[in-house]
């Protein structure tokens, strides 16, 4: 007697849709020395995606190769100060292979005394 068997394969497909952020980075990117994206690639990417909006900066750091920083931020905080803050904090979590997206929130507090 010959045994018979029936088999079937089903594939379930799930789609998740979300909006592609333009530009894909926010305020800054921290690029590791062995990340898939390097200084040159980042430079060309931002030049194409958001011309004149970001500055790509090569840095001297043991694990971080470059920073991509929104230019508008550098008008609010001096460039070198901003770089050192991002490196100081980013350097604690970043490693050679990662690319980190950074959100920076800058609150300007102004206090004035006026004579009435």
């Amino acid at each position: 007697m010959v045994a018979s068997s029936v088999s079937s394969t089903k594939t379930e497909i799930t789609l998740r849709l979300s909006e592609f952020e333009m530009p894909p980075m926010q305020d800054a990117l921290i690029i590791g020395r062995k990340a898939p994206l390097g200084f040159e690639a980042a430079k060309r990417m931002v030049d194409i995606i958001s011309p004149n909006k970001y500055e790509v900066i090569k840095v001297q750091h043991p694990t971080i190769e470059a920073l991509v920083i929104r230019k508008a931020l550098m008008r609010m905080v001096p460039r070198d100060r901003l770089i050192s803050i991002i490196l100081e904090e980013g350097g604690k979590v970043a490693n050679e292979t990662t690319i980190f997206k950074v959100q920076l929130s800058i609150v300007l507090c102004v206090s004035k005394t006026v004579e009435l």
Partner: protein
Amino acid sequence: MITTVSSIMEKDLITIESMDSVDNARQIMARKRIGCLPVMENGRLVGIITTWDIISSNPNRLVADVMTAPPIYVEPTASLWEAKEKMDKYCIERLLVVEKGQLIGLITKTKLYFEIAKHFDMLTQLNKKDYIIYEGVKLLKSGKEVSLIFIDIDGFGIIDKEYGHIFGDLILKEVSDLLKAKVPADCFLCRYGGDEFVVLTPYKRDKCMELAKELLDAISQHDYSIKVNITASAGISGGRREKSRFSVDYVDDIENLINLASLASTRAKRNKVSLVVADGFIPSKK
């Protein structure tokens, strides 16, 4: 004539664009079994990518992000020693050859060392003529004084005939060891031919003559391993530098000085004196 980089360079080069991926560079290098690729951008040489760059990089990266730039290169007219100096200085295994801004070739360290070995005398452990020309050209280019001592062992053929070539070689080795010990650190020594040695110095004529006498004395006073009296004759040239006497072809100038010194050493032998100083300047052979 001096051996130049152009005679040993590889001309059929495979290049890669700077916007290509590291993974693509790796595949090309593996398929073609080569250790590096010159990197081009809009037809211009911008760097070089080697297996070392690839090993330590993410394969998704752009070649522009991992290449070594700016590229280290030599001109095709550079001598083998100039190329070696550059490779040693930058600790690199491959050197690009560029002429008028265009990439025309590449030399590997293995090929370069193989060629340089041809200009090294195994018996005496001394460089041959090309090395002296290279160092002489360097002295001329840097505006320094140049003088040459051409030393020829007297009656060396008789030693070979009476004692055999094995003992002849032994004497040559002993003479070269003597010269190595006596030649100052700022001078250069080579074995020119069979029983001939050349010393290149950055000295004026008088100081060069003093050195020549010292070397001849060392040769004649040494106690050799076979009981034989060895003397040598020497000719001196140069040491009276006047810019107008030199042409723009420094190789030709050094070859002229060697020729003058060799003729002077022949005159020394003929006149049975130990040292003759050459006068005049032989016109370029071109």
